[in-house]
C-alpha cells in the first residue's frame, strides 16, 4: 500500500518534471548542457526590428543577440571594448579612421566589410527610411543633407563617411567629440548585410545579422526562436543551444509561468511580486544596477516655474522626498536613491560622483524652509504628471507627493496628475504644455557621462523636455567634448553637473536596477548595464 502510493507519487513527479522540461525547453527537447535551449520572457517590439529603428529594450534584446558592432560594452563594467573594430584612430577628435577586423561574416556567409557599416549608417540616417534613432548619426558630417530639419533630403549618403578600402573607412564629424568611438557599441551602429537592402521584407520577417545567434523562426506577436550560430567568429560564443523569446501580455504572467516551471528567465519582475521572490525563487533572483535614472523635470518654459530664486524651491522639494523610504517600500530596493544626475554604472572613472550631496537627502525641516524662501509652490498646489498606461508610475508619484505633503505639513501641496496614454503624455511634454513638474526617465544609450548630461540639460537639446538652460552648463559641456584627455573631459562634465546642482535643473530621484528571476534549469544569468540579459553566457544545467 505504502509502496504503491510512493510509486504513484514518483510517477506523477516524473510526469510533471517531463512536462516542465518539455515546456521549459521550448518544446523541442533541447536537452541540457551546451545544446540546452533557454526560454525567456519577451514583449512585442514596438517598431520594426531594424537596428537604427529600435529604441526600446524588447527589440534591443534581439539585436543584442544577432548583431555585433565595432565596439561591445562589457556586460559587467560597461567599458567599450573593440569587437569588430581592429582599430579606430584619430588625431584631432574630428576625423576618425576605422579598420574592421578580418574574418567576420554575417550568418548568411556574406563578409562584414567597411561597406557593411557605411551602408547601414547611411540607411539609418536617411530621412526616407523613418529610422527613429537617426539622430545618432547627427554628429557625422553631411547628416544635414540626408536628414534636413525641413524639406526633402538633398543627398543620398553622408559626405562624412568614406570607404577607403575593403576593411577601412573614415568618419568626419561636424565637431570635436573625443569619446565618439565609445558610442559605437550602440545597436544603431551595427553593420547590415546586403540582403537587408535587396529584400527588405524578407529580412524583417527573419532578420540576419552577425551575432552569436541566428533567427530560426519568428512568429510576430507570439515568439521568436533563436539558435546558436556555430560558425560565429567572435570570442563570445553562445554557451547554450539557443534562446526562445516568448511574448507575454503581462510581466506578472511571465513571472507566474517562471514559478510554475514553464519559463527559464524573466527579466522584468513585477513590483508587486518583489516581496515573494525569495519565497518563490530563493537565490535565483538578480538585482543589479542599470544605466537608468529617473528624475522630476520642471517646466522652465512656464513663467510661474521660472522665477529667479526658485532654485531654492526646487532644492527644497528635492529634500522633501524621502528617497530611502520610497525605494525600500514601493520598489523593494530595485531602485537606488539618486545621489547625482548620472548613474553608478559609469563607475568613478566614468564620472559617477555623489555630486547632489545633501540636496538629495531627506530633510523635512530644511525642505520646508527652502520652499518658503523660494517663494513657495506656485499657486499653492503642484501636480506631478505621469502617463497612466504603462510603467505603474502612480504608486511612486503618490508616495513622492505624500512625502512632500508630510514635509511641508500641507495635504494639498502635491497631487499626482495621470495622463491617459504615453503618446499623449509625450505629446504634452514635447509641446511644452506641462503646468508643473513631470516624470522623466533616461536610459543611457552608451555608458558615458556625456550621454546623461548633454541630451537632457544642454540648451535646446533633443531630450531637454523642461527647456532647462544655463550658459555656464553649455560652455562646460562644449569644453568637455573638445577635450581629448578622457579624465579631464570627465572632470569638465562633473563641473557642468555642479552647475546643474546649483540650479536644481531637475530633481534626481533614483537609479533603476535591472531585476530578473530564473529557473533552476539555468545558471550564470546576468544583466548588462542596459538591463538586458546577457543571453550568450547563460548555461543550461
Amino acid at each position, binding site marked *: 500500500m505504502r509502496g504503491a502510493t510512493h510509486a504513484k507519487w514518483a510517477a506523477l513527479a516524473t510526469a510533471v518534471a517531463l512536462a516542465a522540461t518539455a515546456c521549459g525547453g521550448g518544446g523541442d527537447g533541447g536537452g541540457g548542457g551546451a545544446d540546452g535551449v533557454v526560454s525567456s520572457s519577451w514583449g512585442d517590439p514596438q517598431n520594426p526590428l531594424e537596428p537604427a529603428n529600435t*529604441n526600446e529594450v524588447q527589440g534591443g534584446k534581439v539585436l543584442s543577440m544577432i548583431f555585433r558592432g565595432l565596439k561591445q560594452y562589457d556586460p559587467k563594467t560597461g567599458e567599450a571594448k573593440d569587437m569588430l573594430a581592429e582599430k579606430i584612430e584619430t588625431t584631432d577628435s574630428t576625423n576618425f579612421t576605422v579598420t574592421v577586423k578580418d574574418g567576420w561574416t554575417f550568418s548568411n556567409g556574406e563578409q562584414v566589410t567597411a561597406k557593411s557599416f557605411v551602408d547601414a549608417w547611411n540607411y539609418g540616417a536617411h530621412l526616407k527610411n523613418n529610422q527613429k534613432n537617426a539622430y545618432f548619426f547627427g554628429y557625422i558630417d553631411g547628416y544635414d543633407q540626408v536628414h534636413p530639419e525641413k524639406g526633402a533630403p538633398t543627398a543620398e549618403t553622408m559626405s562624412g563617411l568614406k570607404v577607403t578600402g575593403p576593411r577601412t573607412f573614415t568618419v568626419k564629424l561636424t565637431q570635436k567629440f573625443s569619446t565618439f568611438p565609445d558610442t559605437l557599441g550602440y545597436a544603431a551602429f551595427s553593420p547590415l548585410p546586403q540582403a537587408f537592402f535587396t529584400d527588405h521584407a524578407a529580412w524583417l520577417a527573419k532578420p540576419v545579422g552577425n551575432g552569436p545567434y541566428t533567427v530560426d523562426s519568428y512568429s510576430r506577436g507570439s515568439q521568436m526562436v533563436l539558435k546558436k550560430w556555430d560558425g560565429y567568429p567572435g570570442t563570445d560564443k553562445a554557451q547554450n543551444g539557443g534562446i526562445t523569446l516568448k511574448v507575454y501580455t503581462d510581466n506578472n504572467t*511571465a513571472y507566474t509561468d517562471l514559478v510554475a516551471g514553464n519559463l527559464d528567465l524573466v527579466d522584468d519582475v513585477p513590483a508587486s511580486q518583489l516581496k515573494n521572490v525569495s519565497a518563490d525563487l530563493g537565490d535565483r533572483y538578480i538585482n543589479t544596477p542599470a544605466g537608468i535614472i529617473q528624475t522630476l523635470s520642471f517646466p522652465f518654459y512656464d513663467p510661474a516655474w521660472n522665477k529667479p530664486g526658485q532654485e531654492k524651491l526646487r532644492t527644497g522639494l528635492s529634500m522633501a522626498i524621502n528617497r530611502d523610504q520610497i525605494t525600500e517600500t514601493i520598489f523593494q530596493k530595485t531602485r537606488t536613491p539618486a545621489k547625482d544626475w548620472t548613474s553608478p554604472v559609469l563607475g568613478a572613472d566614468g564620472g559617477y560622483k555623489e555630486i547632489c550631496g545633501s540636496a538629495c537627502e531627506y530633510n523635512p525641516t530644511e525642505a520646508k524652509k527652502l520652499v518658503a524662501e523660494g517663494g513657495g509652490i506656485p499657486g499653492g498646489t503642484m501636480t506631478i504628471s505621469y502617463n497612466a*498606461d504603462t510603467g505603474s508610475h502612480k504608486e511612486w508619484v503618490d508616495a513622492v507627493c505624500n512625502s512632500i505633503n508630510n514635509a511641508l505639513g500641507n495635504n494639498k501641496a502635491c497631487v499626482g496628475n495621470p495622463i491617459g496614454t504615453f503618446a499623449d503624455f509625450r505629446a504634452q511634454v*514635447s509641446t511644452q504644455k506641462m503646468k508643473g513638474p513631470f516624470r522623466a526617465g533616461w536610459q543611457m544609450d552608451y555608458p558615458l557621462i556625456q550621454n546623461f548630461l548633454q541630451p537632457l540639460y544642454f540648451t535646446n537639446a*533633443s531630450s531637454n523636455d523642461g527647456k532647462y538652460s544655463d550658459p555656464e552648463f553649455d560652455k562646460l559641456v562644449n569644453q568637455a567634448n573638445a577635450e581629448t584627455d578622457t579624465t579631464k573631459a570627465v572632470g569638465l562634465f562633473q563641473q557642468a553637473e555642479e552647475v546643474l546642482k546649483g540650479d536644481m535643473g531637475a530633481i534626481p530621484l533614483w537609479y533603476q536596477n535591472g531585476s530578473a528571476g530564473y529557473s533552476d534549469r539555468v545558471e550564470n544569468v546576468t544583466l548588462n548595464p542596459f538591463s538586458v540579459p546577457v543571453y550568450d553566457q547563460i548555461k543550461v544545467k
Partner: protein
Amino acid sequence: MGRYVIRRLLQMIPVFFGATLLIFLMVNVMGDPIAGLCGDRQCDPATAAQLKKEFGLDKPVWQQYLTYMGNLFTGDFGTAFNGQPVTELMADAFPVTIRLTIVAILFEIVIGITLGVITGLKRGHPVDTTVLLLTLVVLSVPIFVIGLLVQLLLGVKWGWIEPAVSPEAPFDELIVPGLVLASVSLAYVTRLTRTSIAENKRADYVRTAVAKGLPRRRVITRHLLRNSLIPVVTFIGADVGALMGGAIVTERIFNIHGVGYQLYQGIVRQNTQTVVGFVTVLVLVFLLANLLVDLLYAVLDPRIRYA
C-alpha cells in the same frame, strides 16, 4: 421572416458607416500618436513629419476617413505602428477570442441558467443564499484578483493548468480563463434567470401544467424555463460582443493574445488603423448577435412574430 432578416441585414449598412466614422473620429481626437513612438525622448521633427506622412496623418480627418474606407473595401485594413498589417493582427487575434468567448458563453448558459433555475425554484433556501454570496464576491472582488488567485492556485500550487495559455490557445487551455471571464456575467445570468423563474412559476400555464400531471422536469424545461429565458437570452446576446472586445484583463492575466488585448494596445498607442479595424469587425458581431437574439424571441415565445 425572410424579408425581416433581409431588412435587418440592410440596416447594418448605415450602422457600419456610423460606427466606423464615430470610432475614427474618436481615435483622431486623442491627438498626435507619433510622440509616443520615440520612447522617453522627443522624436526629431523631420522623422516625425515623415512618419505622419507615411501613416497619412498629415491629411485632414475627412480625407483620412475616405482613404481608409476606400482601402477597407479592397480588403486593406492598414498597418499597425510596428509595421504589421492589421489583417494579420486580426487573423491572429479573432480565432483565439472567438474560442474564449464560446467557452465563456457556454459557462454562462450551463452554469448560469442551472443555478438560476435552482435558486429561482428555491428562494430563501441555503442554496439561494450561497449563490447570492458568490455573486457578491464576484462583483466586489476585481476580476484581476480572481484571475490571479485562480492562476496561482490551479497553475502553480496544484499544477492543474498551465498558468499561461500557449500562442495556439486550444479549447482545453481556455476553460479556466473562460470561466474567469464569464464570472461577472454569470452573476447577471443567474439572477436574471432566478427572477424570471420565480415570477413565472406561479403563472397559470405552469400551474395548469402541474395540474395536468406533467412530470416536474418537463414542466420546468418546456413551460417554465422556456418562457423565462427572454431576458436571459437578451443579456447573453449583448454579452457576446462585450466579452469579445472587453476581455482585456482576462487576456492579460492568462497571456491570451486576443482581441481585447490588441484593441487595448491599439487604443493606448492611438493607432487608428488597428482600433477602427477591430471595432468594425466587433460591430458586425454585435449586429449579428442581436439579430439572432430577436429571432430567438420568436422561438421562445411564438406570440412574437416577424413580418
